[in-house]
Each structure stands twice: as structure tokens, then as C-alpha cells.
């Protein structure tokens, strides 16, 4: 290990910390958009509680107390269920096996990329 190794590794760690810091500034969201294979298949307000089967029942979306989470999935790893609750603008839940994403947006006019 030399000095430039430390700079490179330290720089990357700082970068990830800075990005974590930025994501703390997210505003709370107002609705979620569900996409399968990149196509929007539904949007749900975070204000109204509800349980919604998605994508023919492959995943189950629950909206509760202004948060969204997936309560069940038919994939083996269930990573999307473990990802827990999201409520802030830009947060995402992803189910890679079913190519499904649930993205939180703040304003009604959703922009596609947030950091």
C-alpha cells in the first residue's frame, strides 16, 4: 500500500459517504410508480392505505402510514421484501427476478432520475 492507494480508497469511501449524505436530504414523497420491464403499470398515492397485488400477483405492494413496502414476492431470494419501507422522494424497491421496481416520487410530475 502506498500513499496513492490510500488516496484512491479514501476518495471512494468519502464519495459514498457524500452520496449517503445527499440522500438524507430527500423530501418525503407523495406517490409511488410501479414499473415492470421499464413500463409503468401503476401509480399509487402514499396518502391512501391499501394492499395491491402487482404484476399478476408476483409481488404484493402495501401502502401504510405514508410508507410503501412489498409484503410478499414469488421470487426465491425475496430481496424486495427485505428492502423494507420507502417513503422519501427517489427511494426505490427493486425485484430483479421479476424486473419490477417501485419508485417514490415527490411531485406529481415525476422526473426519471434522482440521485
Amino acid at each position: 500500500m502506498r500513499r496513492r492507494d490510500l488516496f484512491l480508497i479514501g476518495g471512494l469511501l468519502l464519495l459514498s459517504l457524500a452520496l449517503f449524505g445527499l440522500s438524507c436530504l430527500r423530501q418525503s414523497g407523495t406517490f409511488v410508480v410501479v414499473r415492470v420491464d421499464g413500463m409503468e403499470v401503476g401509480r399509487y398515492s402514499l396518502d391512501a392505505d391499501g394492499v395491491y397485488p402487482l404484476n399478476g400477483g408476483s409481488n404484493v405492494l402495501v401502502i401504510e402510514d405514508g410508507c410503501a413496502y412489498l409484503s410478499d414476492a414469488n421470487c426465491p431470494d425475496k430481496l424486495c421484501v427485505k428492502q423494507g419501507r420507502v417513503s422519501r422522494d427517489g427511494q426505490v424497491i427493486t425485484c430483479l427476478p421479476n424486473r419490477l421496481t417501485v419508485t417514490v416520487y415527490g411531485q406529481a410530475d415525476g422526473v426519471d432520475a434522482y440521485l
Partner: protein
Amino acid sequence: MKSRKLTVLALCASLAMVLSYLESQIPSFVAIPGIKIGLANIAVVFALYALGGWEAAAVSGVRVVVTAMLFGSGASFLYSLAGACLSLAGMAGLKRIGGFSAVSVSVVGGVLHNLGQILMAWLLLGTGAIVYYLPYLILSGTLFGIAVGALAGYLVKRVPLSE
């Protein structure tokens, strides 16, 4: 190609495949998709130092294709291909620049592997919102990259390859 080199190359490729398989058996310990230890990169970094850039590309290429055929799906092949291409280009580039240790090379490989997967997910999932995972993936790529690079660097020192 000398038979000795060919043999080492084949050993690296099969080691990379076994390590990939081993890693696929470890249950995911965090909920973020795409976080991996990157054990197979031990064999790729070793090949990069012991044999060279093209040889490392061969090891990585064989691993990606054969692992996808044996254990994977079409989608997992695309993710791993995107990750492997970016990762290799970055690692070979950084090694060529010189002055960095194997740990740095492996860290850059790990981070770029994750970046490649995010870009592929952007393409396949059709939403840029996926960059939400970027800070997690940079952090995990760096930390696991340090461990993988340290191991690979140790192996390069210890395994005699001179004829």
C-alpha cells in the same frame, strides 16, 4: 502459447468459476440487490498480475459465459457481463497507469463491476431511479475490493510462476 501458461490460465478460469458458484451459495446478507463479495475477482486479479491483461480478460470471459450457462439465466448473464467488462477495463487501465497496489486495482474493479450492473439495470428496468443504490454499491465494492485485492496480492507473491 506455452503450455505452462495455458495451464495456469485454465486453472485461473476454473478457480473463478468455482468461486462464483461458492458465492452464489452464500445467502444474501443485505437487502440491496447487486451487493456481492466478488470472490471470483481473486482469480481475475491474480491472472492480471501473474499473466497479463488479455489473459485476465479470458479468465473473466470464460467465467461469465460458463457460469451463466451452468447456474444463471439470461438476465444474470447480462448483469454479470456489463459488470465484468467495465471492471476489467478499469483494472487493466489502473495497472497500466502504474503506482497502485493490487488492492487499489481490485477496489476499482469491484466498484466498476457494481457500476456496470447499475447501468445494465437502468437499461433493463427502464428507470434511472436505480441510481438510488449507487452509494451502497460504491461502499460495498470498495470494502470487499480491499479484501479481494489483499488476497490476490498475497497469492501473486506466494505462488511461484517463473519457469
